[in-house]
């Protein structure tokens, strides 16, 4: 929990560094002619956005949703299906996506919030699975093979089919979300959420209709994930049921924890480290003896797994969390 009053120095330095790095990445990429790294950057920010959305209920609200990939999918498919019918207006894409996921999130959230603890994890998972199989069933829209996106979202002059435009749009959206997140956490709503996480029984006794607020939080986080989905679709020019697979939901959780649960900037760090690791491990080259590199590349997922386990065991507050951890109190 980022305390309003006493920020340690690192608390300002780390975010500042992250933001600066992201802002300058395309420049560096074009300068070195390595435009591919701009793609990686976009990917990082898209997943950072999704993780940030999840973090709202996971980190601050203590609701473990194992099904948020579902909203990634809603976002992606809204773009894919609309452009399948020749609609390229980003505004329409956005409006549809948000409308649909609001509706879904309200219903699903209302049902899920009846359950608590493990049951909540499972029922969110169940809903995600339903939509996953639904997407596979959508033969008209590619079924399991997914749907290619011919027309990408165009917001007036901003055409997301241009990589750099897409990058900076993603950057802007992410930054706005993070600022909003930061404000929200310290506003009434945020205080309430954190209160529920800290001591739900007391919150009720104080007179808060807890569930209602949790539902709103759930919907908000779903909407952020939907935005991410929309950007993801524009990045990969593709919508696939695998966006909604249960292990994607799991991955999102990992991103949040990896970066630092309940810290505003944490998800960005998590996503960055995760995707960069993916890149590093899959194109591993330290010139290890007798083809060790190839072996590493072959089994990179295993190493990723080991790292995850290690982080889970040794870093209670994730990478960023441990960087800025204050003596004494924890980051949560």
């Amino acid at each position, binding site marked *: 929990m980022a305390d309003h009053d006493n920020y340690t120095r690192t608390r300002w330095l780390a975010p500042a560094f992250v933001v600066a790095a992201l802002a300058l990445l395309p420049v560096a990429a074009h300068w070195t002619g*390595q*435009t*591919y*790294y701009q*793609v990686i950057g976009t*990917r990082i920010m898209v997943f950072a956005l999704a993780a940030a959305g999840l973090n709202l209920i996971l980190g601050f609200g203590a609701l473990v949703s194992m099904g948020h990939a579902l909203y990634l999918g809603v976002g992606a498919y809204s773009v894919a299906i609309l452009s399948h019918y020749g609609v390229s207006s980003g505004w329409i894409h956005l409006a549809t996506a948000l409308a649909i996921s609001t509706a879904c999130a309200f219903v699903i959230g209302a049902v899920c919030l009846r359950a608590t603890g493990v049951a909540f994890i499972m029922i969110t998972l169940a809903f995600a699975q339903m939509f996953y*199989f639904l997407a*596979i069933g959508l*033969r008209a829209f*590619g*079924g*399991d*093979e*997914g749907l*290619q996106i011919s027309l990408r979202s165009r917001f007036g002059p901003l055409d997301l089919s241009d990589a750099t435009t897409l990058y900076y749009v993603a950057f802007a959206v992410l930054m706005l979300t993070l600022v909003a997140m930061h404000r929200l956490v310290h506003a009434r709503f945020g205080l309430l959420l954190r209160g529920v996480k800290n001591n739900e029984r007391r919150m009720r006794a104080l007179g808060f209709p807890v569930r209602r607020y949790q539902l709103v939080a759930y919907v908000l986080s779903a909407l952020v994930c939907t935005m991410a989905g929309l950007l*993801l679709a524009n990045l*990969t*020019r*593709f919508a*696939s049921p*695998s*966006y909604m697979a249960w292990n994607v939901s799991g991955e999102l959780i990992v991103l949040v924890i990896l970066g630092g649960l309940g810290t505003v900037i944490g998800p960005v760090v998590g996503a960055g*480290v995760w995707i*960069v*690791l993916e*890149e*590093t491990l*899959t*194109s*591993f*080259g330290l010139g290890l003896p007798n083809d060790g590199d190839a072996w590493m*590349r*072959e089994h990179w*997922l295993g190493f990723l797994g080991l790292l995850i386990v290690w982080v889970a065991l*040794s*870093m209670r507050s994730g*990478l960023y969390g*441990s*960087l800025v*951890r204050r003596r004494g109190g924890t980051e949560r």
Partner: protein
Amino acid sequence: MKLERIRPTVAAALLSLCLGSALAQAPAPIRIGFLATFSGALAPLGRDQYDAFMLAVEQRGGRLGGVQVQVLKEDDQFKPEVGTQLVQKLIERDNVPIITGITGSNVLMAIAKPIAEKQVFLISTNAGPSPLAGAQCSPYQFVASWQADVIAEVVGKYAADKGYKRVALMAPNYQGGKDILAGFKRLFKGEIVGEIYTPLQQLDFSAELAQVTASKPDALFAFYPGAGGVGFVRQYQQAGLLKTLPLLTTGIIDGTTLPALRESALGIVAGHVWGPDLDNTANRQFVQAFEARYDRIPSNFAAQAYDGALLLDSAISTVKGNLSDKIAFAAALKSADFKSIRGKFQFGRNNFPVQDLFIFEAVKDAKGRMTMKSIAAPLKNHADMYAAQCLMK
């Protein structure tokens, strides 16, 4: 508290690691992106494709068409979005002129367009979905394996020749499955007594098998690639159908699954473009070399990839290693001037092969290993039916 101190350093280390990889840039002759599925249920396919391709390269001392090649291996994990991501990487970071491999048609469908737009040559050595054979054909994309329908058509023809009257069909419920069953029905004239599509992730088919046998067919035609196939055959055997109901297949019995099936596959019939016993010198040498190198019988996936390598070898040598003239290189590829291990091989107007198709039976070889024995060749110089829709000259 020791952890306290190392945590930041670890975090820093991770970041520096990737920066390192960013700078890693070796100068290379001809770079070839090899994108295939190396993890998950279809990993064996990708492995065979890669092994065979590399075998061809090794046999030529690391060269194709007399030019040094550097093969960049990438794992699409059978996920289209990962595929597109990796294609961007191969083209934008490693700027490869050629991308080959390609295991899944879902991946191919996702990456075909981005690759064609960048005018990079795409040679699929396995997937061959119908849209790319028809309206979406392109001078930059070649399929060295087969169009999905034909390996089903040949089985349909075989079933007709064999005089089966009533046949039941089973396939997983996705586009590939649909195409295959459609292909079978195209050349099979008899009656279809049942057409069952099982959910994609489903691994237990006993219920459907019971349903099928209830309709008393003369034979069953089934298509289950990868994981499903093994389970399907085991259950077919356990249901006691192996002896009573002839099983015609495609995409189930091949070099990658036979070791896991052993006796339970004996007598099963499969249609394909290639088998280890095809009688031509090129093939004999290939099978021998492959077994010597990897100590297993090559699968058709290996064979197709090997043909793909031979194709590149011939084309590159025709243009003397100069890929900058794309028209010339496309023409060189199209002429397909190489000794295919399938015997005859040429490209149709849609850059899909026109080739003979065979029927194989699963048998034990001299060493007691399971292998495929060709028993018929119902279709000669067969082209897929989508070529007509391709407007490319």
